[in-house]
């Protein structure tokens, strides 16, 4: 059962493998440049496991930021993750104890894979999502650790390689778009975010964007929830 789930999950994680290895490498190189060994990179990749947060952590560590500053920064950068759990309550419902591990590993990229994919026929749902989560985490750990170890040996120009994550989200967005006739939720997501980005600027737009998405989805629930209500109430 596990082997089957692993085989189904692995191909889906390949784009994340590429992205996490490169971004992890970048993190490891930066961290090492501040005088921290690969053990620190490994440790942070295992227990924090968050892309943009770990990049911010390098600056916080280097500046010797206070715990209060560290805490506020963490909340500000990570708050978007609230949405991930909120939309996976049902999917992770019958997964058992391993769901705590899966929740721990719920990054942007893992969320987007889990939210946009269903296990193939005959594959256990829980283990399928578990292996997506675990594989992604292992790529990140490998990338961060290798970056701190051998990062200085990378000689080719890596500028722009972080676009791999943007490309992943764009592709998943297109997949979702082509899979449904109801495009309003996707448009609400993009529209609210762009509007809030213009109004609040890149550093503080995410909370207003989340709130407005939630608000608009709530206001239009009656029209957007139409066909599905029968499933939900049965």
């Amino acid at each position, binding site marked *: 059962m596990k082997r089957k789930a692993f085989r189904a999950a692995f191909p889906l994680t*390949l*784009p994340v493998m590429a992205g996490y290895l490169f971004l992890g490498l970048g993190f490891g190189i930066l961290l090492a440049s501040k005088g*921290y060994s690969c053990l620190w990179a490994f*440790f*942070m990749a295992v*227990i*924090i496991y*968050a892309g943009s947060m770990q990049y911010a*952590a390098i600056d916080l*560590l280097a500046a*010797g*930021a206070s*715990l209060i500053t560290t805490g506020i920064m*963490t*909340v500000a950068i990570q*708050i*978007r993750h609230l949405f*991930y*759990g*909120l*939309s996976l*309550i*049902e*999917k992770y419902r*019958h997964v058992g104890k391993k769901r705590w591990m899966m*929740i*721990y590993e719920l990054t*942007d990229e893992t*969320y*987007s894979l889990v*939210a*946009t994919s269903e296990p193939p026929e005959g594959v256990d749902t829980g283990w399928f999502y578990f292996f997506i989560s675990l594989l992604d985490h292992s790529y990140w750990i490998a990338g961060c650790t290798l970056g701190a170890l051998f990062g200085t040996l990378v000689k080719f120009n890596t*500028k*722009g*390689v972080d*676009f791999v*994550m943007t*490309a992943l989200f*764009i*592709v998943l967005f*297109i997949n*979702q778009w082509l899979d449904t006739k109801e495009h309003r*939720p*996707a*448009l*609400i*997501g*993009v529209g609210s975010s*762009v509007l809030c980005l213009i109004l609040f600027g890149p550093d503080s*737009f*995410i909370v207003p964007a989340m709130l407005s*998405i*939630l608000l608009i989805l*709530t206001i239009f*629930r009656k029209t*957007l*929830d139409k066909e*599905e*209500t029968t499933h*939900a109430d049965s």
Partner: protein
Amino acid sequence: MRIPDSQALLMIFLMAAITFLIRVLPFILFPGNKKTPSYILYLGKVLPYAVIGMLVVYCLKDVSPLTAPFCLPELLTVAAIAVVHVWKRNTLLSIGGGTILYMIFVQFVFI
């Protein structure tokens, strides 16, 4: 030049704890053994579409449309990915090709 290891560890633990707390909070508020409110079920259906859209914007938040190169590398790459993906429906081709195209743009074309 490094802060004491104990302080660094404390900061790392704090970041990890807050990150996990944010990720786990919805699951604590709506535990699996109780019937999930229909509003949350509704959000589970529509939020993924909105959130992936939000993540695309989040990834592109730091590009500036007012200064050179005026988002051109990003716009062209996004357009290329969209065309190739709708045409071929090959995830790895779209992502890999898109990334390489973007790297060529920012390294050789729009310097």
